[in-house]
């Protein structure tokens, strides 16, 4: 990565690495003990490592002179590698905690490996580590291609990627040490949250500066989605994480929100993390890689406009469907339910647009596992958005809420939609990045596809059964008007489903490991940093 930077950029990088070291040292010195001190030390070590590497390269040769005529793909490659590392680790933890629900005696007697600490490790690792890296990496690729411009500068992509991964590592290691805000999908403590804001501002600035250099008059649809992802995630992250630290030299903080307001803010954040992290960004990915891989233009331009603004406007309202029948005012619940149902229109418009794009390319879907990943992703996107609208309806929610049905719904979205589109994008991108026609092991892509589909299917069906069984057992009355089942009986009834779920998870994880190994084999032997792997800018306009 350093060889692709000019001497001036290496000096800038050195300066930033020293700042990171100073921040790390300050945190460690101020906190002295506890998670914040450990995290400060991590930042210090990372900063020193980068500083030494950059200082040592100050007298090395500059990159070749025509660098500016090429796309900058090295950050994308780094992001893809991080995506797959996080996939294997975080999905591995997911399989492990799933197994613990079937076999709780296997819990080791150490605090750090307890279920309650590993569960947020799994969610953060998968959403932010796997999903976030995939989004950032592909956004750099898509942004440059659709703008026909090189990234606006060469240092900030690395600040974004390395800084973002530092956030992810801080977050998950914090949970293992017992530091958490307990807000779901926003568990990281205040200093990590502040750090992410800084990284996000750099990301946004880089995106806008590159867009400003574009040689296409129009901004392509994929970029609208990536922009919505960047902007709205910033808004959600900042508002939900507003907190007052007990001390600036300590990890612990209290959210400024309390009670019913906190519940509403949390699920406004929580559901829109699904909308703008796990949907908008990945739709951006779909809108670029599906047409590229299938060789077909997006079916309807108008439909993409309607669905984009529909998703941006409607999604924000729906968070309150997580709070049906609770102490949240009834009218807010009703609004959330209504918008959840309306949301089906733009969601299915997107899914339909994607599937209709494949018209005329169905033979490719049959033959090409990579394109099939994207097709299945679009189908699962349609299925899980339908399920989401359905579960948001108040009486349905009375049965499904608090049960494993929710878990099944989330995984039909994350395994079936998010992970599938990521794998489709990776299998399209990695050969390009390596200057090859295909992955190193094309047969393994086929294997991965079927492992992923089978794993998702088993997982989701098991959780549907589990959730509906739980929901019904909790509400069944006998002839005398007493509840028929104790809570414990409903726990016992879950055992076969929890076992099946773990098996589904193992299949899915095996596929992800296969993908990581395949990617490693494909990228192996490609010399990066000397410019050979960079693709030249396309000079002719798209249309």
């Amino acid at each position, binding site marked *: 990565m350093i060889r692709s930077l000019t001497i001036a950029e290496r000096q800038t990088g050195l300066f930033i690495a020293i700042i990171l070291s100073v921040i790390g040292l300050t945190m460690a010195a101020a906190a002295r003990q506890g998670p914040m001190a450990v995290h400060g030390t991590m930042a210090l070590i990372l900063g020193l490592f980068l500083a030494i590497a950059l200082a040592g390269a100050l007298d090395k040769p500059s990159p070749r002179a025509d660098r500016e005529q090429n796309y900058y793909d090295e950050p994308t490659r780094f992001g893809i590698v991080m995506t797959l590392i996080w996939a294997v680790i975080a999905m591995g933890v997911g399989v492990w905690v799933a197994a613990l629900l079937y076999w709780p005696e296997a819990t080791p007697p150490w605090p750090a490996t307890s279920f309650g600490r590993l569960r947020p490790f799994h969610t953060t690792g998968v959403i932010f580590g796997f999903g976030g890296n995939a989004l950032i990496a592909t956004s750099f690729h898509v942004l440059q291609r659709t703008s026909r411009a090189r990234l606006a500068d060469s240092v900030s992509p690395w600040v974004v990627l390395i800084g973002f991964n530092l956030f992810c590592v801080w977050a998950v290691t914090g949970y293992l040490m017992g530091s958490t805000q*307990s807000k779901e999908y926003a568990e990281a403590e205040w200093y990590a949250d502040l750090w992410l804001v800084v990284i996000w501002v750099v990301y946004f600035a880089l995106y806008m500066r590159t867009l400003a250099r574009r040689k296409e008059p129009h901004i392509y649809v994929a970029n609208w989605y990536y922009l919505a992802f960047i902007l709205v995630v910033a808004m959600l992250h900042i508002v939900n994480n507003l907190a007052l630290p007990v001390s600036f030299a300590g990890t612990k903080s209290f959210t400024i929100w309390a009670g019913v307001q906190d519940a509403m803010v949390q699920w406004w954040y929580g559901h829109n993390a699904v909308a703008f992290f796990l949907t908008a960004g990945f739709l951006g990915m779909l809108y670029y890689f599906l047409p590229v891989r299938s060789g077909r233009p997006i079916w309807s331009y108008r439909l993409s406009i309607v669905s984009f603004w529909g998703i941006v406007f409607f999604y924000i309202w729906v968070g*309150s469907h997580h709070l049906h029948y609770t102490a949240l005012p009834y009218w807010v619940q009703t609004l959330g339910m209504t918008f959840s149902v309306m949301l089906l229109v733009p969601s299915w418009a997107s899914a339909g647009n994607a599937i209709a794009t494949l018209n005329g390319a169905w033979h490719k879907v049959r033959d090409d596992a990579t394109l099939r990943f994207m097709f299945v992703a679009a189908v699962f996107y349609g299925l899980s958005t339908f399920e989401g609208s359905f579960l948001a309806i108040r009486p349905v929610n009375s049965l499904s809420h608090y049960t494993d049905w929710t878990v099944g719904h989330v995984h039909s979205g994350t395994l079936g939609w998010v992970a599938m589109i990521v794998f489709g994008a990776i299998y399209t991108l990695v050969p390009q990045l390596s200057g090859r026609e295909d992955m190193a092991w094309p047969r393994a892509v086929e294997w991965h596809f079927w492992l992923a589909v089978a794993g998702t299917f088993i997982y989701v069906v098991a959780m549907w059964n589990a959730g509906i069984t739980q929901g019904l057992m909790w509400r069944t009355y006998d002839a005398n008007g007493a509840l028929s089942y104790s809570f414990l009986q409903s726990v016992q009834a879950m055992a076969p489903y929890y076992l099946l779920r773990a098996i589904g998870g193992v299949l899915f994880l095996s596929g992800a490991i296969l993908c990581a190994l395949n990617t490693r084999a494909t990228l192996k032997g490609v010399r990066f940093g000397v410019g050979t792997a960079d693709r030249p800018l396309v000079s002719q306009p798209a249309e």
Partner: protein
Amino acid sequence: MLRLHYNLEKLSMGLVVGIIVAASIGGAVEIAPLFTIDQTVEIPDDMRPLTPLELAGREVFIREGCYACHSQMVRHLADEIDRYGPYSLASESAWDHPMLWGSKRTGPDLARLGGKYSDAWHVAHLIDPRAVVPTSIMPAYPWLERSLDASDIGAQMGTLARLGVPYDDARLANAAADALAQSSPDSDGAAGVAERYGDNVAIRAFDGDPSRLTEMDALVAYLQSLGTQTRLPYAIMSEEQP
């Protein structure tokens, strides 16, 4: 309209502004009015905040991720009221930073847990759940018997006081002492805890050993406090179902 969008696509700042506006409306409409609730939903007269020891227990509850499997929100549905007790009121979590309503019941709801089981049951259950409930799938928490680090409790309560939780000067000044006294009923400080937090505070050696303050003391004190900070939910239920 299409023409308008055709031109909007050429303006990156136009898209940025459009996205921010479109994505702000829903949140503003649903969240802003909730802040007038402070004036419309009254805090019950008998409502008390958590004691220092219970607050420390809440931190243990959060640290161990208990909220991932246990909700604290009884919905107003017949079967939930029959199974757990009176439905939860907004005022009950008004001082909770953050709320712990939860989203999943791998284990049962805990909103009405206080007083349902003995302290000894909780201790045995937390150390080895399957010793008490053979088919439980809850993990064991044997490390909770280590000493509680109570040095930060006063500062934490001070922060909560700045956020509006009613910890007055007397409560703040005695935070660490009250944490210790609540789990040693025969000590001199025990009367002070009752004086500052009211008579419905449990003052017991929760883990059975009054000489040592452990994380187990804190967590069990917290679990026994759940649903006992006010009697209002029970009063409402008995009015609704005479």
